[in-house]
Protein backbone atom coordinates (compact mmCIF):
# COMPACT_ATOMS: atom_id res chain seq x y z
CA UNK A 1 0.00 0.00 0.00
CA UNK A 2 1.28 3.43 -0.95
CA UNK A 3 0.26 6.79 0.46
CA UNK A 4 -0.38 9.51 -2.10
CA UNK A 5 -0.21 13.09 -0.81
CA UNK A 6 -1.92 15.90 -2.71
CA UNK A 7 -1.50 19.59 -1.83
CA UNK A 8 -3.48 21.09 -4.72
CA UNK A 9 -7.19 21.84 -4.89
CA UNK A 10 -9.09 19.68 -7.41
CA UNK A 11 -9.49 22.66 -9.77
CA UNK A 12 -5.82 23.71 -9.60
CA UNK A 13 -3.74 21.83 -12.13
CA UNK A 14 -3.74 18.09 -12.62
CA UNK A 15 -2.35 16.85 -9.30
CA UNK A 16 -5.58 15.17 -8.16
CA UNK A 17 -6.19 13.61 -11.55
CA UNK A 18 -2.63 12.29 -11.74
CA UNK A 19 -2.70 10.91 -8.20
CA UNK A 20 -5.98 9.10 -8.80
CA UNK A 21 -4.75 7.59 -12.04
CA UNK A 22 -1.60 6.31 -10.31
CA UNK A 23 -3.42 4.70 -7.39
CA UNK A 24 -3.86 0.97 -7.06
CA UNK A 25 -6.74 -0.72 -5.23
CA UNK A 26 -5.20 -0.55 -1.72
CA UNK A 27 -3.51 2.84 -1.98
CA UNK A 28 -4.63 5.75 0.18
CA UNK A 29 -4.85 9.45 -0.60
CA UNK A 30 -4.18 12.23 1.91
CA UNK A 31 -5.27 15.79 1.15
CA UNK A 32 -3.07 18.51 2.69
CA UNK A 33 -2.69 22.30 2.27
CA UNK A 34 -5.05 23.59 -0.44
CA UNK A 35 -5.75 19.97 -1.31
CA UNK A 36 -8.22 19.78 1.60
CA UNK A 37 -10.73 21.64 -0.57
CA UNK A 38 -11.27 18.25 -2.18
CA UNK A 39 -12.90 17.12 1.06
CA UNK A 40 -15.85 19.50 0.60
CA UNK A 41 -19.20 17.88 -0.27
CA UNK A 42 -19.22 19.74 -3.59
CA UNK A 43 -15.83 18.26 -4.56
CA UNK A 44 -15.75 14.84 -2.98
CA UNK A 45 -17.61 13.05 -5.79
CA UNK A 46 -14.36 13.29 -7.75
CA UNK A 47 -12.90 10.80 -5.28
CA UNK A 48 -15.79 8.27 -5.50
CA UNK A 49 -13.47 5.54 -6.79
CA UNK A 50 -11.40 5.58 -3.60
CA UNK A 51 -14.16 5.87 -1.01
CA UNK A 52 -12.91 4.75 2.39
CA UNK A 53 -9.32 5.49 1.43
CA UNK A 54 -9.54 9.30 1.33
CA UNK A 55 -8.03 11.31 4.19
CA UNK A 56 -7.68 15.03 4.91
CA UNK A 57 -5.36 16.83 7.32
CA UNK A 58 -7.21 18.45 10.21
CA UNK A 59 -4.79 21.38 10.69
CA UNK A 60 -5.17 22.44 7.08
CA UNK A 61 -8.97 22.12 7.19
CA UNK A 62 -9.01 24.27 10.32
CA UNK A 63 -6.64 26.85 8.86
CA UNK A 64 -9.07 27.34 5.98
CA UNK A 65 -12.21 27.40 8.11
CA UNK A 66 -13.37 24.13 6.57
CA UNK A 67 -13.40 21.89 9.64
CA UNK A 68 -16.93 20.56 10.00
CA UNK A 69 -17.77 21.49 6.41
CA UNK A 70 -16.06 18.46 4.93
CA UNK A 71 -17.94 15.44 3.63
CA UNK A 72 -18.43 12.69 6.22
CA UNK A 73 -16.93 10.09 3.90
CA UNK A 74 -13.53 11.78 4.29
CA UNK A 75 -11.41 10.55 7.20
CA UNK A 76 -9.84 13.45 9.08
CA UNK A 77 -6.40 12.94 10.63
CA UNK A 78 -4.13 15.23 12.61
CA UNK A 79 -0.38 15.51 11.95
CA UNK A 80 0.25 12.53 14.20
CA UNK A 81 -2.20 10.59 12.04
CA UNK A 82 -0.32 11.79 8.96
CA UNK A 83 2.84 10.19 10.34
CA UNK A 84 0.88 7.02 11.12
CA UNK A 85 -0.31 6.84 7.51
CA UNK A 86 3.31 7.07 6.34
CA UNK A 87 4.27 4.29 8.77
CA UNK A 88 1.58 2.03 7.37
CA UNK A 89 2.44 2.71 3.74
CA UNK A 90 5.44 1.08 2.12
CA UNK A 91 6.23 4.41 0.48
CA UNK A 92 4.75 7.85 -0.14
CA UNK A 93 4.25 9.81 -3.35
CA UNK A 94 3.62 13.55 -3.36
CA UNK A 95 1.62 15.22 -6.14
CA UNK A 96 1.88 18.99 -6.53
Amino acid at each position, binding site marked *: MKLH*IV*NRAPDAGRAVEQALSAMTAEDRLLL*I*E*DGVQGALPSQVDGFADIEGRLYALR*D*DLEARGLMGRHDERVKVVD*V*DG*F*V*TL*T*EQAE*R*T*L*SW*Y
Partner: protein
Amino acid sequence: MRYAILLMGAPYSDQASHSALRFARAVLARGHQLETVFFYHDGVYNAARLAAPPQDEPHLVDGWITLNAEHGVALQVCIAAALRRGLMDEREASRHGKSGYSVEAPFELTGLGQLVDLGLNCDRLVTFAS
Protein backbone atom coordinates in the same frame (compact mmCIF):
# COMPACT_ATOMS: atom_id res chain seq x y z
CA MET B 1 11.79 4.00 11.54
CA ARG B 2 14.35 6.10 9.70
CA TYR B 3 12.73 9.05 7.94
CA ALA B 4 13.99 11.69 5.54
CA ILE B 5 12.23 14.74 4.15
CA LEU B 6 12.70 16.32 0.73
CA LEU B 7 11.70 19.99 0.70
CA MET B 8 11.38 21.84 -2.61
CA GLY B 9 9.33 24.89 -1.65
CA ALA B 10 10.64 28.36 -0.83
CA PRO B 11 10.02 29.65 2.69
CA TYR B 12 7.14 32.14 3.05
CA SER B 13 6.08 31.73 -0.60
CA ASP B 14 3.64 28.91 0.08
CA GLN B 15 2.94 26.31 2.70
CA ALA B 16 5.49 23.64 1.76
CA SER B 17 8.22 24.65 4.25
CA HIS B 18 5.71 25.00 7.09
CA SER B 19 4.18 21.63 6.24
CA ALA B 20 7.61 20.00 6.17
CA LEU B 21 8.63 21.46 9.54
CA ARG B 22 5.31 20.44 11.09
CA PHE B 23 5.71 16.91 9.75
CA ALA B 24 9.34 16.74 10.93
CA ARG B 25 8.33 17.61 14.48
CA ALA B 26 5.54 15.01 14.42
CA VAL B 27 7.90 12.31 13.14
CA LEU B 28 10.29 12.98 16.01
CA ALA B 29 7.47 13.19 18.55
CA ARG B 30 6.40 9.68 17.56
CA GLY B 31 9.88 8.40 18.38
CA HIS B 32 11.16 7.95 14.86
CA GLN B 33 14.60 8.92 13.69
CA LEU B 34 14.66 11.81 11.23
CA GLU B 35 17.97 11.41 9.44
CA THR B 36 17.96 14.33 7.08
CA VAL B 37 16.02 17.18 5.61
CA PHE B 38 17.20 17.65 2.03
CA PHE B 39 16.64 21.11 0.55
CA TYR B 40 16.28 21.20 -3.22
CA HIS B 41 15.01 23.64 -5.88
CA ASP B 42 13.60 26.77 -4.16
CA GLY B 43 13.70 24.84 -0.89
CA VAL B 44 17.36 25.86 -0.61
CA TYR B 45 16.24 29.35 0.54
CA ASN B 46 15.40 27.68 3.86
CA ALA B 47 19.16 27.69 4.48
CA ALA B 48 19.61 31.47 4.13
CA ARG B 49 21.53 32.49 7.24
CA LEU B 50 20.49 36.14 6.85
CA ALA B 51 16.77 35.40 6.95
CA ALA B 52 15.12 37.87 9.30
CA PRO B 53 11.34 37.38 9.29
CA PRO B 54 9.12 39.59 11.50
CA GLN B 55 9.28 38.50 15.13
CA ASP B 56 5.62 37.53 15.25
CA GLU B 57 6.02 35.03 12.41
CA PRO B 58 7.52 31.53 12.55
CA HIS B 59 11.28 31.63 11.92
CA LEU B 60 11.70 28.71 9.56
CA VAL B 61 15.50 28.82 9.37
CA ASP B 62 15.75 28.73 13.16
CA GLY B 63 13.17 25.94 13.18
CA TRP B 64 15.46 23.75 11.10
CA ILE B 65 18.48 24.68 13.20
CA THR B 66 16.59 23.64 16.34
CA LEU B 67 15.82 20.23 14.80
CA ASN B 68 19.52 19.78 14.18
CA ALA B 69 20.53 20.91 17.67
CA GLU B 70 17.96 18.86 19.56
CA HIS B 71 17.66 15.76 17.40
CA GLY B 72 20.78 15.65 15.25
CA VAL B 73 18.80 16.02 12.02
CA ALA B 74 21.20 16.61 9.12
CA LEU B 75 20.34 19.68 7.03
CA GLN B 76 21.59 18.99 3.53
CA VAL B 77 21.35 21.58 0.78
CA CYS B 78 21.75 20.74 -2.90
CA ILE B 79 24.85 22.65 -3.90
CA ALA B 80 23.87 23.09 -7.55
CA ALA B 81 20.45 24.47 -6.64
CA ALA B 82 22.02 26.70 -3.97
CA LEU B 83 24.90 28.26 -5.91
CA ARG B 84 22.74 29.45 -8.77
CA ARG B 85 20.43 31.16 -6.27
CA GLY B 86 23.25 32.95 -4.44
CA LEU B 87 23.29 30.60 -1.50
CA MET B 88 26.79 29.47 -0.57
CA ASP B 89 28.95 28.85 2.44
CA GLU B 90 32.23 30.61 3.19
CA ARG B 91 34.28 28.08 1.26
CA GLU B 92 32.21 28.32 -1.91
CA ALA B 93 32.06 32.11 -1.62
CA SER B 94 35.82 32.23 -1.52
CA ARG B 95 36.07 29.85 -4.45
CA HIS B 96 33.72 32.05 -6.50
CA GLY B 97 35.35 35.33 -5.42
CA LYS B 98 32.35 36.56 -3.41
CA SER B 99 32.78 38.88 -0.43
CA GLY B 100 29.97 37.48 1.71
CA TYR B 101 28.40 34.13 2.35
CA SER B 102 24.80 33.11 2.94
CA VAL B 103 24.88 29.53 4.26
CA GLU B 104 26.54 28.27 7.42
CA ALA B 105 26.51 25.21 9.65
CA PRO B 106 24.51 23.26 10.58
CA PHE B 107 23.35 23.52 6.97
CA GLU B 108 25.73 21.69 4.67
CA LEU B 109 26.10 21.99 0.92
CA THR B 110 26.01 18.58 -0.65
CA GLY B 111 25.36 16.79 -3.92
CA LEU B 112 22.26 15.23 -5.38
CA GLY B 113 23.83 11.82 -4.77
CA GLN B 114 22.98 12.31 -1.10
CA LEU B 115 19.29 12.48 -2.03
CA VAL B 116 19.55 9.23 -3.96
CA ASP B 117 21.25 7.72 -0.94
CA LEU B 118 18.38 8.85 1.33
CA GLY B 119 15.85 7.30 -1.02
CA LEU B 120 17.74 4.02 -0.93
CA ASN B 121 18.63 3.83 2.73
CA CYS B 122 15.81 5.47 4.67
CA ASP B 123 12.58 3.63 5.43
CA ARG B 124 10.47 6.62 4.39
CA LEU B 125 11.21 9.66 2.23
CA VAL B 126 8.41 12.22 2.25
CA THR B 127 8.34 15.11 -0.24
CA PHE B 128 6.94 18.58 0.33
CA ALA B 129 6.85 20.85 -2.71
CA SER B 130 5.22 23.97 -4.09
